[in-house]
């Protein structure tokens, strides 16, 4: 029986198949193309942004011949952007490393060494650094940590690699563990988690087609997530959806918008606060939803106050809210929050909000943001039209929201808006945090961050989690029978993770080796990590596919910090700006002591494993070819590199002993299949999914995880992804839609949690279980069971039995974020960026009063008037992040070959600059050179009656790679958000002049 291509894949999708040897073009459909004759085809996922487009790789004789969009992939249907289209040049590129490169201390060039030699030397450096700096105790508390080593990077690694990196580093005791997620979306995780309980994009790419309004702020998706426009345009064409774009510049995204509204960088909270006020004033809220599914009716502690930009409990000396006791609900005798469903009590959240946001008038919005009043009102009107139960808006946002000293609160404001409109949980709704790296969702899930462990379990701190009992004492609790309070299961997830990490060594008697986990005493987010590196705290560091001297804030300072390291291990496809930091312009290699190991990595088409896209879909990629170069010296997967290093370290500790060797000697670490030589991503994926202990039966759901040591699970949120020994659901290619027919494609790949495609979907129905909109229902209650998507919070409880926001201990969405969820306030408030051209018109606080200011850089911040222009940074479609994956690709360098900035014709005229001139842009942190693009897309904004000019810069460039240019981040400040310390890349001050 003839089987169509699609049917064949459906049949084979459950297994590890996915690679087809055959005549040309089984998948591509190009039957007569001579270039594809005799090629082998395999599927892969694009390694660039977080959309997760599918590609087909054709190879012959171990060489990639062609890469193109996968026509069956439900997100991209065969399409790609310029970067995806250029993937071929990642695989076939003369700049790829084919041997390990070694730079000796004070060396002026690379030398080539063998893998064996590199492993041996690196293992030695790691062991020496660990043994020399290991701390067993901090006071009375066992901390077992290694401050001498840092690990940075991982958002481009596969899930299996991220998980093993997280486990490897923590087993060594590393707490200086950070990566790209800190500087791109950490504010998202904090802001969304404080509102809904989870920190991820709620819906997914295809679901954008179901929206009535697409509200895009702080995102230039046309440039950075091009495939999303396929679904935006579909919503516009098929449903008559309205697209609203709010951005300081008229962007490619704005060019297709129905309404474009400008705003000054760093004033999102004024704009969004204005919409909140508009909705409350005009009563344009989804009343039933707000009453039932949010904390609008909850009564707040009468001691809670707000005055002149400060909430109650502020400690001016320490610049923090040390006392957040008043940020709480009033409790009744049964320890349940008091409520007033009439919403009249002056202490109820709704009334507090009305008062709080009443200051955000359209006049104030215009004065502060520079957005003309009529444009603002048009945006507010279109967005608030979705307060009707059967109208839905989706919010798409990215770094323009997160990279501010108020980044987390920006995200909070979006959450508040979507709760007021009743748009959470619905098809075409939700808050869609657009992820910029192919696996930054997965690298965050697997916790390459100092403050969390896999599955968003808090990382142990010496202060709050001195013992397992202390850790479990912080488990969220509730007395409310309507609340699922899913986090009450946390102890099971922790013990299962410990079991996966330490195996037989982890017993009930020894608290499952809880003390083997390192505990941090001081938060060390990205900026702090580099400040500590500059102080010489670390001896060595790992850079796993990361480029911090282009991508980090205050990049000159980062480069100086790296010079303080004794050794650096960089794993990458090619030389990057950071791995040759010792040879950067202005540096003298003869004075730089750092020993550098640059290990060649396998690219995304040269290894196997999964990546999680922005919509939480874990998708499996196959190995098409080996990394380029001779067999003995060519690149290896990061997984294999980490595995070999770990086993070598284990050998060394076995032979030589050393500081606290137990975790290294006894870790559950078996990743090389019998009879093979390479670590297998399947073995890792099975551990991540979890199995029963000791008989290793794959777990099917995290609901079966236990806290008694009978289950092992590396990351509970991925439990169910690999539920049988040859049942890898992440590799599925089924194209049948679910019964609700809204484009969820539940048989395509696998999505956390439990293949739930839209999280908080319990809020998609009213208390009777009827969908708010019958035409695009997500779930519905039949009276005895749920239909449609996998319902949030367990299938048994009906809509009246449980509240929808199962990850919050009160079970409802938070308009007011109580307790210690946030460091800077339960409501949002506008503060100016650290560097701003004007005073704050909303209150007398200048910058976010809880933002941490690092003393060492205090003098670098510009005052009002010191530099006249507001500067901001962004990206273009042709390049990706810090540029290492694109600036070596000739096809992309043809399109954007040079560093450039964008300025308005009026600023250009004032400075005598013409389009194409070389300009210098400067502030207290540095001076960079760029080409000037003079464009009417940039316009000065009237801020409180005075025009303010902007300088926009791309931040992809640096001095390594084929295309070179100055790094924008030499100018960005070392200041971060109050909750996560995400740097303020998006609003700072600078000046510009024509180069002589």
């Amino acid at each position, binding site marked *: 029986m003839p089987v169509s291509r699609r049917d064949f894949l459906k049949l084979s999708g459950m297994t590890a198949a996915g690679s087809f040897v055959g005549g040309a073009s089984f998948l591509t*459909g*190009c*039957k*007569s*193309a*001579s*270039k*594809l004759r005799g090629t082998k085809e395999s599927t892969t996922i694009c390694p660039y942004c977080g959309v997760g487009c599918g590609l087909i790789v054709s190879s012959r004789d171990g060489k*990639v011949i*062609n*890469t*193109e*969009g996968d*026509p069956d992939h439900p997100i*991209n249907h*065969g*399409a*790609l*952007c*310029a970067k*995806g*289209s*250029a993937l*071929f*040049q990642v695989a*076939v590129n003369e700049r790829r490393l084919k041997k390990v490169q070694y730079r000796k201390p004070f060396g002026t060039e690379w030398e080539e060494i063998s893998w064996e030699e590199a492993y041996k030397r690196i293992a030695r450096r790691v062991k020496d650094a660990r043994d020399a700096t290991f701390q067993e105790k901090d006071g009375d508390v066992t901390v077992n940590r290694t401050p001498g080593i840092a690990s940075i990077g991982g958002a481009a690694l596969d899930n299996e690699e991220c998980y093993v990196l997280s486990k490897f580093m923590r087993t060594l005791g590393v707490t200086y563990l950070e990566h790209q997620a800190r500087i791109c979306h950490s504010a998202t995780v904090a802001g969304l988690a404080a509102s809904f309980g989870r920190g991820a994009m709620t819906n997914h790419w295809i679901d954008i087609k179901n929206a009535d309004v697409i509200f895009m702020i702080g995102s230039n998706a*046309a*440039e950075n997530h*091009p*495939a999303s*426009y*396929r679904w935006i*345009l579909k919503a516009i*064409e098929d449903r008559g959806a309205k697209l609203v774009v709010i951005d300081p510049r*008229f962007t*490619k*995204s*704005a*060019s*297709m918008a129905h309404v*474009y509204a400008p705003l000054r960088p760093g004033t999102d909270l004024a704009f969004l606060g204005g919409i909140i006020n508009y909705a409350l004033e005009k009563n344009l809220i989804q009343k039933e939803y707000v009453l039932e599914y949010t904390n609008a009716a909850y009564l707040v502690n009468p001691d809670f106050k707000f005055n002149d930009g400060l909430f109650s409990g502020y400690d001016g000396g320490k610049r923090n809210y040390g006392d957040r006791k008043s940020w709480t609900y009033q409790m009744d005798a049964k320890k349940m929050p008091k409520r007033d469903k009439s919403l009249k009590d002056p202490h109820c959240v709704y009334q507090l909000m009305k008062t709080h946001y009443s200051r955000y008038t359209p006049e104030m919005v215009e004065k502060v943001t520079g957005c003309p009043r009529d444009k603002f009102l048009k945006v507010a009107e279109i967005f608030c039209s979705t307060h009707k139960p059967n109208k839905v808006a989706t919010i798409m946002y990215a770094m323009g929201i997160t990279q501010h000293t108020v980044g987390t609160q920006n995200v909070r404001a979006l959450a508040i808006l979507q709760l007021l409109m009743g748009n959470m949980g619905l098809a075409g709704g939700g808050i869609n945090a657009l992820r910029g790296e192919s696996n930054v969702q997965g690298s965050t899930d697997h916790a390459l961050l100092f403050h969390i462990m896999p599955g968003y379990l808090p990382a142990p701190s010496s202060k709050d989690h001195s013992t397992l009992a202390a850790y479990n004492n912080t488990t969220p609790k509730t007395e409310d029978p309507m609340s699922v309070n899913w986090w009450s299961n946390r102890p099971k997830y922790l013990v299962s993770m410990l079991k996966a990490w330490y195996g037989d060594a982890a017993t009930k008697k020894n608290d499952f080796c809880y003390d083997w986990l390192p505990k941090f005493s001081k938060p060390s987010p990205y900026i702090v990590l580099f400040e500590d590196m500059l102080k010489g705290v670390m001896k060595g560091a790992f850079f796993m596919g990361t480029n911090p001297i282009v991508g980090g804030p205050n990049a000159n300072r980062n480069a100086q910090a790296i010079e303080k390291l004794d050794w650096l291990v960089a794993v990458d496809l090619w030389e990057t700006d950071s791995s040759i930091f010792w040879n950067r312009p202005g540096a003298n290699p003869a004075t730089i002591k750092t020993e550098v190991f640059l290990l060649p990595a396998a690219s995304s088409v040269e290894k196997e494993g999964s990546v999680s896209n922005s919509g939480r879909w874990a998708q499996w990629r196959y190995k098409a070819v080996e990394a380029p170069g001779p067999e003995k010296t060519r690149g290896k997967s990061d997984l294999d590199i980490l595995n070999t290093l770990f086993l070598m370290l284990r050998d060394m500790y076995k032979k030589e002993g050393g500081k606290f060797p137990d975790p290294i000697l006894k870790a559950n670490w078996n990743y090389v299949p019998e009879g093979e030589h390479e670590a297998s991503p399947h073995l890792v994926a099975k551990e991540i999914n979890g199995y029963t202990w000791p008989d290793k039966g794959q777990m099917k759901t995290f609901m079966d995880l236990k806290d008694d040591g009978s289950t092992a699970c590396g990351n509970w949120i991925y439990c169910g992804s690999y539920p049988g020994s040859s049942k890898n659901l992440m590799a599925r290619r089924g194209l049948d839609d679910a019964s609700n027919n809204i484009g969820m494609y539940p048989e395509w790949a696998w999505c956390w949690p439990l293949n739930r495609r839209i999280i908080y979907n319990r809020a998609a129905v009213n208390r009777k279980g009827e969908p708010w909109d019958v035409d695009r229902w997500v779930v519905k209650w039949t009276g005895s069971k749920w239909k449609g998507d996998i319902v949030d919070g367990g299938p048994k409880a009906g809509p009246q039995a449980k509240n929808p926001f199962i990850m919050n201990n009160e079970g409802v969405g938070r308009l007011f974020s109580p307790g210690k969820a946030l460091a800077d306030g339960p409501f949002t408030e506008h503060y100016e960026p650290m560097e701003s051209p004007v005073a704050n018109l909303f209150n007398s606080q200048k910058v976010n009063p809880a933002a941490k200011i690092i003393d060492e850089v205090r003098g670098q911040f510009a005052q009002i008037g010191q530099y006249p222009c507001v500067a901001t940074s962004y990206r*273009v*479609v*042709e390049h990706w992040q810090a540029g290492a994956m694109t600036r070596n*690709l*000739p*096809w*992309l*360098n*043809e*399109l*954007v*070959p*040079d560093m450039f900035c964008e300025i308005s014709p009026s600023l250009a005229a004032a400075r005598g600059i013409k389009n*194409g001139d070389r300009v210098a842009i400067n502030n207290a942190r540095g001076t960079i050179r760029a*080409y000037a*693009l003079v*464009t*009417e*897309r940039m316009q000065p904004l009237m801020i409180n009656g005075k025009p303010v000019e902007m300088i926009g810069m791309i931040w992809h460039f640096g001095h390594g790679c084929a295309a070179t240019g100055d790094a924008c981040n030499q100018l960005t400040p070392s200041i971060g958000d109050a909750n996560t310390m995400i740097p303020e890349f998006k609003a700072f001050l600078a000046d510009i002049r024509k180069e002589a």
Partner: protein
Amino acid sequence: MSGKAFLVDTTKCSGCRACQVSCKQWNNLPGEKTTFFAGPEYTNPAELSAITFNHVKFFPIDRTNPEKTIWTIMHKKCYHCEEANCLRVCPEGAISKVEGWVVIDQSKCIGCGACVNECVYKVPHVLNENTPLYGKEGFIKKDKSYKCHACISENRRAVPLCAQHCPTGALTFGDRTALIKRAQARVKQVSADFPHANLYGLEQYGGLRTLTILKDEPEKYGLPRVGKAIDLRRAEAIKDAYHLFAMFTFGLPSLKRVAYKISRSLMG
């Protein structure tokens, strides 16, 4: 005019330039050396070339309507005219129609530049120096004319990769009659935002196989409203003169090019 066609919809183009790159990937064409931007906004290189068969041009924004700023981003490739000047003037018969597409046979091309001169859309280009292919052994030979061949070359595709990769549907490929129908409906659909929107390519040069939905009048984008193929008699006269001179060129392309230049100046 039946058969296949491309449809460019500038109201849907986000300027991602997947088309420009995809073409290079499928055809193993190298990237061009550029500096800053060679045209308005992000345009790079300035135009189509002998190694760039797909090009995206960014026009400066138009702010005349305060309610609706217009930014046109336009994909360009060979228009594959039904009555193609390049084909009419090629003295060596190197340009022909294959399934309706205008295709250059480089083995016959002498690089005289006749097609380059006569194409009002500035599509074909003669390569100045031998240029290595990317990702494949071999060279693109100099002194030959090159342009889009709609992927009906030896590496034939059912759907050219430029169109398959377009993420927004701004560049599509299909049956010309069906595309026209769809395009006309689209023009109507967008007329509120773009009152001068029109479908370009129905009439020009006997009808084009690359049709374009424009947001405004063709002149704004440098496209001739009326396109009439050159007089066949004049083209034939040039060719006749050329064939006469060509007898004394010993088959050398360089001399053939001189012969063509003389013929053109004599008969043109």
